């Protein structure tokens, strides 16, 4: 009966450990939930008082304007002043004023309070049409502007430090406990089961052990549920005040008759919207960090994922006047589609946000047994010394001005976490002033569509883009294709000129536009063909300019003809890397001061490689 005794001892020890862990876990739940409430309350009211003060200043402006035109009587105007006035002491006294003090704006509030008696006197003697309106308006608006700055600072400060940070620390503590409780619950469960099998003679005890194991499993499950509930509650508590403030501003927007104030309210609404987005991202990040999200990797076609990412940003890009191009693919990959989509969406969102002109290109290419998804933009680029840091939470390049335009510090941190979780490497190429390329590497998967895989195997061994700048003439009648091609070329630091027909290209060259270093021409053009244009321009330049013909049809005769003339032959759709390959070839040739004709030859060879890999 030695086994029976040891089993009993083991069970008692296990139960004690489990009880200790659960008690600790729930103790921290209790500790943390009071902290959470405190933090959420401070966030709610601290932000609220400044936003409210600004709102009342806007209503005062409204009343002044109404009085000037006879819409509002004197009493109502004075009431508006008083209501506005009643808001200012709240920023100086009481618990809510701490938020203002923390961003160092007590003086701003005190200063406004000091200006109010003089303002009151002026409003008392103000009568419609006496010319004092504009000065009054200006002075109240200056108060409003100062309050607006305070509000934005309180909002900003709270979102990236202080309470949310404390909330997160608390959350980390509690989830830490939960994870420990869960793991030990699982370990105990396993241990008890093993003992149960080993001691078949102890049927009685086995039954009890099984019951204990079930209890511990139930406790672990409950702990997990508690964690989910906590997350839900935290997000609710933080979102609610934001939502209220956004609604209030929305309502305010419809009431303002003062044109000058409208963009300011819109700016405030926008800032609130961004705060909400940031909050969502933070919660996502928290879920990722604590393992609340687990990936499910499987073979899946890539195109639907890209389509879905693109669908979310096409309109946004168009609104900003940016081109958005998605290069179609038939590749299959091994990933968790939802997570990958989230990561790509963040990358594209980031690209759209930071690109002021030009466009965004989303595409992929195969390299060996891997697939690389590229998000290319023509944005400002990322300085060398900041390429690591952009993946940190709350890091952003530039100043707060940039932040108010929509920069945020979480998108890339989430991308980094998600991709680590999935085991997909991410790399970044960027040229200041030209653009950036974020690339995600994924394992390729077998598929029905895989029999005719696209891609050139020598791409991986290509040299990095040389510093030599290449002037490219793109002849393409489809404006969008031409533009996206240019986008890729410019994002690689080269220059690009477009012509929509062979005739236009020839005219451009004749009119003294510098002779291009490389011509990329569509074969099918209205009027003369792309090949005609290449011949013509080469004749005008008196040398064999490197050139490539791009076409949608794979007529072997055409290919032979092009290659015979030292013209590269590429099949649509062109991938950004094919273009990069062409450019680096030409640039390398320029650097080495090779004879252009040789480059033409090498291009032709490269072209034949491309084509053979298509067969």
């Amino acid at each position, binding site marked *: 009966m030695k086994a029976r005794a040891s089993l009993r001892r083991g069970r008692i020890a296990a139960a004690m450990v489990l009880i200790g862990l659960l008690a600790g876990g729930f103790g921290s739940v209790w500790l943390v939930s009071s902290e959470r409430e405190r933090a959420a309350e401070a966030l709610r009211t601290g932000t609220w008082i400044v936003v*409210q003060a600004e709102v009342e200043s806007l209503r005062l402006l409204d009343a002044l304007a109404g009085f000037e035109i006879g819409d509002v009587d004197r009493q109502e105007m004075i*009431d508006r002043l*008083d*209501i506005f006035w*009643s808001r200012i002491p709240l920023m100086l*006294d*009481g*618990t*809510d004023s701490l938020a203002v003090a923390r961003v160092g704006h007590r003086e701003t509030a005190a200063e406004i309070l000091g200006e109010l008696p003089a303002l009151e006197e002026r409003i008392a003697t103000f009568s419609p049409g006496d010319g004092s309106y504009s000065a009054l308006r200006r002075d109240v608006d200056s108060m409003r502007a100062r309050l607006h700055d305070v509000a934005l600072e309180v909002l900003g400060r709270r979102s990236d430090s202080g309470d949310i940070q404390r909330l997160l620390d608390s959350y980390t503590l509690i989830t830490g406990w939960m994870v420990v409780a869960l793991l030990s619950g699982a370990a105990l469960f396993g241990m008890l089961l093993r003992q149960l099998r080993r001691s078949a003679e102890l049927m009685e005890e086995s039954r009890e052990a099984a019951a204990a194991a079930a209890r511990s499993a139930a406790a672990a499950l409950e702990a997990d549920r508690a964690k989910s509930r906590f997350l839900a509650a935290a997000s609710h508590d933080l979102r609610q005040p934001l939502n209220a403030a956004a609604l209030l501003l929305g309502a305010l927007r419809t009431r303002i008759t003062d044109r000058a104030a409208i963009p300011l309210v819109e700016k405030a609404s926008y800032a609130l919207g961004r705060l909400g987005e940031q909050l969502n991202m933070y919660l996502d990040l928290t879920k990722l960090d604590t393992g609340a999200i687990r990936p499910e990797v499987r073979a899946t076609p890539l195109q639907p994922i890209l389509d879905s990412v693109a669908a979310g940003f096409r309109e946004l890009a168009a609104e900003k006047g940016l081109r958005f191009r998605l290069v179609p693919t038939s590749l299959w990959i091994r990933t968790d589609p939802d997570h990958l989509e989230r990561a790509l969406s963040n990358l594209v969102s980031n690209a759209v946000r930071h690109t002021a002109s030009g466009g965004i290109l989303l595409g992929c290419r195969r390299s060996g047994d891997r697939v690389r998804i590229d998000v290319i933009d023509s944005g400002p680029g990322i300085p060398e010394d900041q390429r690591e840091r952009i993946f940190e939470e709350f890091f952003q390049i530039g100043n707060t001005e940039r932040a108010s335009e929509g920069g945020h510090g979480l998108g890339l941190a989430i991308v980094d976490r998600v991709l680590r979780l999935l085991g997909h490497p991410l790399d970044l190429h960027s040229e200041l002033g030209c653009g950036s390329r974020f690339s995600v590497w994924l394992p390729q998967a077998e598929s029905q569509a895989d029999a005719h895989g696209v891609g050139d195997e020598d791409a991986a061994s290509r040299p990095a883009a040389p510093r030599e700048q290449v002037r490219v003439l793109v002849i393409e009648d489809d404006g969008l294709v031409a533009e996206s091609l240019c986008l890729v070329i410019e994002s690689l630091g080269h220059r690009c000129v477009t012509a929509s027909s062979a005739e236009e290209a020839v005219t451009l060259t004749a009119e003294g536009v510098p002779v291009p270093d490389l011509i990329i021409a569509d074969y099918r053009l209205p009027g003369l063909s792309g090949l005609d244009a290449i011949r013509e321009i080469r004749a005008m330049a008196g040398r064999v300019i490197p050139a490539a013909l791009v076409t949608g049809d794979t007529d072997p005769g055409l290919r032979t003809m092009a290659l015979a003339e030292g013209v590269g032959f590429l099949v649509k759709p062109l991938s950004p890397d094919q273009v990069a390959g062409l450019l680096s070839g030409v640039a390398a040739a320029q650097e080495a001061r090779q004879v252009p004709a040789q480059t033409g030859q090498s291009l032709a060879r490269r072209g034949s490689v491309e084509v053979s890999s298509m067969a």
Partner: protein
Amino acid sequence: MLLRSAAALLLYLVAHMPLAALAEGLAAPTGRVILTVEGAVSHTNAGTTAQFDREMLERLPQHEIETSTPWASQVVRFAGPRLSDVLDLVGARGARLHATAHNDYKAEIPVADAAKHGVVLALKADGRYLSLRERGPIWIVYPLDSDPSLVEAGAGDRMVWQLARLRVE
């Protein structure tokens, strides 16, 4: 005979009218209206609403609440009529009050709070009338200090300042 029964009827009606309403007769306000009570009320003086000027509210028994609030570092002595007396005066029949302030802030207050906590419609703070600028003319005040559970129960949100209207539901 007819006259006599009419007189009896009148006497009957008068005898059954609430005493307070009879005393006040809920006269029309003479000063600036600072509070309007509407909704499920049986005694009105302006259409379907009961309106009050400050004098009317001061004629009711005045009560004091001395408490700290989240909005000031000092303890304040608030004074004014009890919310329950005002509700009795207008013959309010309902479970909830919708309070609206001059700054458009809105809050819902259970009618039960009025009697349970002795809620006061404060007209004065530390002996001085509350102006609009000092969050008057009426501030709904709960005795926060004497019942610590009030803050957690959300009484802070119900302490409507710059009160303008009460709707009984």
